[in-house]
């Protein structure tokens, strides 16, 4: 059964009547947060710490305003504003961005809990707990929607005024422009259909970050900006290589991941899964503001604009398990090295914390334990940790292991059955959680594995491949239904 055109109009939906002081005031939009929904997830620190999919903010609520609206109000990012409706008012930092319609102030629901726990074992610890964000519900006047009888969420105008105070905003990503660097690439559907030879692009020497735009076929769509260095930078050439060579020749495996940008929706579920699986420490609001979040995977959000068209792309970024990893050669104590199965392994116990590996990682996926995060773990909380993964202490580096504990488990299982690991036996936490199955894990040495096929797909590319890092993580371009240049 499908909804016929015109069926909705039969419901005679009237636009909501907004109450409020002045018609010039902004329409208030209180919307459920992706992380907390109506607030039921807000107790979980891990959910507070993953970045918002759109704002890339952590730990807090924000008054989202359109760029022009914010300019009219004289409000900049981080200015604390008072949002006042007839029902109530809250104060929270402003976050102007282009994802909000002008004339609207949007606030996520689900935050602002007062953490009261009468059974808390340690009163000091209880006192240290802070209210995170603000509760947006008091802003809603509480009328019922005539059609549905439910709470009318969208029913008030709000007066937004700057309080003069400033707030620090914890942001995981500042800019959404990928600077023509080809991190999140896309191709038009027409180009995808035109391109015939699936191996024409795969693993061939094209110009990495700026690369593919030499011909019309399979051309990357970067947006309407000119590509200044594209012709001149064509010497950023990638040498040919076979990722299977990056494992020991006796090893039957070279593990690899594939990230499909066409199916990735940027929901960040992979970050939660990774953090829970791998005992990633929670750094809290202060740590997040200082840029010290400990996630092993992040989802980079890039916005390309072509005229009025906005094209948002998400690229999951984790350790690329490079075959020629820049991090490995600079570690003086061999704390990070290449194992026989092509994994870039980090031995935190051996690490002395020179942090050169992080500096030399072009993908910036290594994470350093600035504090002794494990000190905060007390008795019942320790049961939440994954016993298969160690807890790292202060002063050492850590990073994505491709869930090496699961790989070990999968190999043990296969060994018990006297066979080799089959495709699909092992799934890292990120791939297991991904709701759109954008992440795939497998053996790049196996000619018929899913990841090998994906790597040879015509949408396939690797990030910063011209550095000759020989990444083990493959990306597939997003497909644009229309060419933004023509639309």
């Amino acid at each position: 059964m499908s909804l016929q055109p015109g069926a909705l109009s039969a419901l005679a939906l009237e636009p909501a009547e907004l109450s409020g002081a002045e018609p010039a005031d902004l329409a208030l939009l209180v919307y459920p947060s992706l992380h907390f929904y109506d607030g039921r997830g807000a107790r979980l620190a891990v959910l507070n710490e993953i970045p918002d999919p759109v704002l890339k903010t952590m730990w807090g609520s924000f008054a989202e305003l359109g760029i022009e609206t914010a300019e009219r109000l004289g409000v900049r990012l981080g200015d604390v504003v008072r949002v006042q409706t007839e029902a109530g008012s809250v104060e929270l930092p402003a976050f102007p961005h282009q994802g909000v319609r002008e004339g609207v102030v949007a606030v996520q629901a689900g935050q602002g809990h007062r953490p009261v726990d009468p059974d808390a074992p340690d009163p000091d610890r209880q006192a240290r707990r802070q209210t995170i964000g603000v509760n947006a519900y008091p802003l809603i006047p509480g009328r019922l929607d005539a059609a549905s009888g439910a709470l009318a969420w969208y029913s008030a105008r709000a007066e937004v005024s700057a309080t003069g105070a400033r707030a620090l905003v914890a942001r995981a990503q500042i800019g959404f422009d990928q600077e023509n660097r080809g991190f999140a690439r896309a191709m038009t559907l027409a180009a995808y259909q035109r391109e015939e030879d699936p191996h024409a692009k795969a693993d061939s020497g094209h110009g990495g970050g700026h690369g593919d735009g030499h011909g019309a076929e399979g051309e990357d769509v970067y947006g309407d900006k000119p590509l200044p260095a594209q012709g001149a930078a064509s010497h950023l050439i990638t040498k040919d290589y076979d990722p299977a060579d990056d494992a020991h020749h006796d090893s039957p495996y070279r593990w690899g991941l594939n990230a499909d940008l066409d199916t990735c929706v940027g929901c960040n579920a992979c970050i939660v899964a990774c953090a829970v699986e791998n005992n990633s420490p929670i750094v809290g609001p202060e740590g997040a503001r200082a840029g010290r979040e400990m996630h092993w995977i992040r989802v980079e959000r890039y916005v390309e604009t072509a005229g009025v068209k906005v094209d948002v792309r998400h690229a999951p970024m984790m350790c690329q398990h490079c075959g020629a990893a820049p991090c490995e050669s600079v570690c003086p104590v061999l704390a990070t090295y290449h194992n026989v199965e092509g994994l870039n392994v980090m031995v935190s116990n051996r690490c002395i914390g020179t942090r050169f590996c992080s500096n030399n990682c072009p993908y910036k996926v290594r994470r350093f334990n600035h504090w002794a995060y494990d000190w905060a773990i007390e008795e019942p909380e320790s049961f939440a940790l994954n016993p298969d993964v160690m807890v790292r202490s202060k002063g050492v580096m850590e990073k994505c292991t491709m869930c090496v504990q699961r790989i070990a488990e999968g190999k043990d299982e296969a060994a018990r059955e006297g066979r080799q690991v089959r495709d699909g036996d092992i799934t890292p936490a990120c791939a297991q959680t991904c709701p759109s199955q954008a992440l795939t894990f497998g053996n790049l040495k196996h000619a018929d594995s899913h990841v090998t096929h994906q790597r040879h797909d015509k949408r396939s590319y690797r990030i910063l491949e011209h550095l000759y890092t020989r990444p083990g993580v493959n990306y597939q371009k997003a497909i644009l239904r229309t060419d933004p240049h023509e639309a």
Partner: protein
Amino acid sequence: MAAATEPLPASPDAINDDILRVLEPPSKTYVLGVLFCGALVACGVSAFLYQVYWGFGVTGLNHPVMWGLYITTFVFWVGIAHAGTLISAILFLFRAKWRNAVNRGAEALTVFSVLTAALFPLLHLGRAWKFYFILPYPNQRGLWVNFKSPLLWDVFAIGTYTIISILFFIVGLIPDIGAARDRVRDWRRHLYRVLAMGWRGTSEQWRAHSRSVLHLSGLATPLVLSVHSVVSWDFATSVVPGWHTTIFAPYFVAGAIFSGIAMVITILIPVRQAFGLQAYLRDVHFDNMGKLILITSSIVGYAYGMEYFMAWYSANPYEQMSFWYRGFGHYWWATWTMIICNVIVPLPLWFKRMRVNLAFMWIVSIFINIGMWFERFVIIMTSLSHEYDPAAWGYYFPSWVEWTILVASVAFVLFLFLIFLRMFPVIAIQEVKELHYEEAH
């Protein structure tokens, strides 16, 4: 010999008196100075222990800027440590006689700054208490080190340099310690007796001494070029835009000599005034050091320009963005401080009148010290905060812990230098005597 404005002292005995007078019981100002520096060093040690206890969260370091003030200051002190060896070894081999009066002070500065520099890679370690992991020695834990890592090359480069510069310093001191042993009557004579190694001033001993100085000069000369080249490879062998460049080794060596000479001037001018050594540290010395500053300033100025030229000429967008950010990004103030202090401020030294104007020289040298510290700050911070991944760009500003340790490192060098002033002759007596002899005959 260049013309000297002041005459040398009349007799060799007067030289002994003038120089060894510095060793006499100190004034109140001196004691206060030592105590002040010592207190600052204690602050630095406390800050370091605080950092060890709590972790690197107490610094300003974050993702992606993982190296900060410590590495900046490390490179800075390694650079300062170049002047002594340059003056003592290279200029000795080239028979540049003017160096005789300044070499002892420069060597002492070298030893103290290389010791200070060597502390920084250790206190910048996330787990400083595991520093011995980086030393290749047989151990039952089965640990070995990665000889591909430039950080390991550093261990050897700095280690070698420390050993050679200390040896050079001690060997050069032997005859003067002999002189001091015969003159000083307090507790220090026991120390001098040991350090003089039975020096009696026989012609046999003089011959052995001058030969050892010659040989050590030969050993130390390549180190002047190698140490800072290796330090520069900490950066140049990486893939980081702004670091990955072949100009780094000569650029760093020139910068090291530049900053080293500046620091020698910064320290020797007050010493000259305070201890009345005008007859020994003469215009010719400052004139010649001013010329060295001019040369090296021109080289670093050229390197700054060449880095920008290569960023443009390479057509490498990452490199171009990095250098745009260097000049006009968040750290523009550091970059322009560096350029003004290192390239613009030394320009008046093209005139001899300015080179022999000690007040001016002293001010210029302070600017160069600041500028060269900023050079390292700029190279490290601008490159790391604006690398390949636009989603992982960041900003770093040092915390009070890092500033404290930076100030303490300056205080530590001054502390050692002040103690050195009262313990050992700051001017090489026998070399000045040689000079005196040559001038007299």
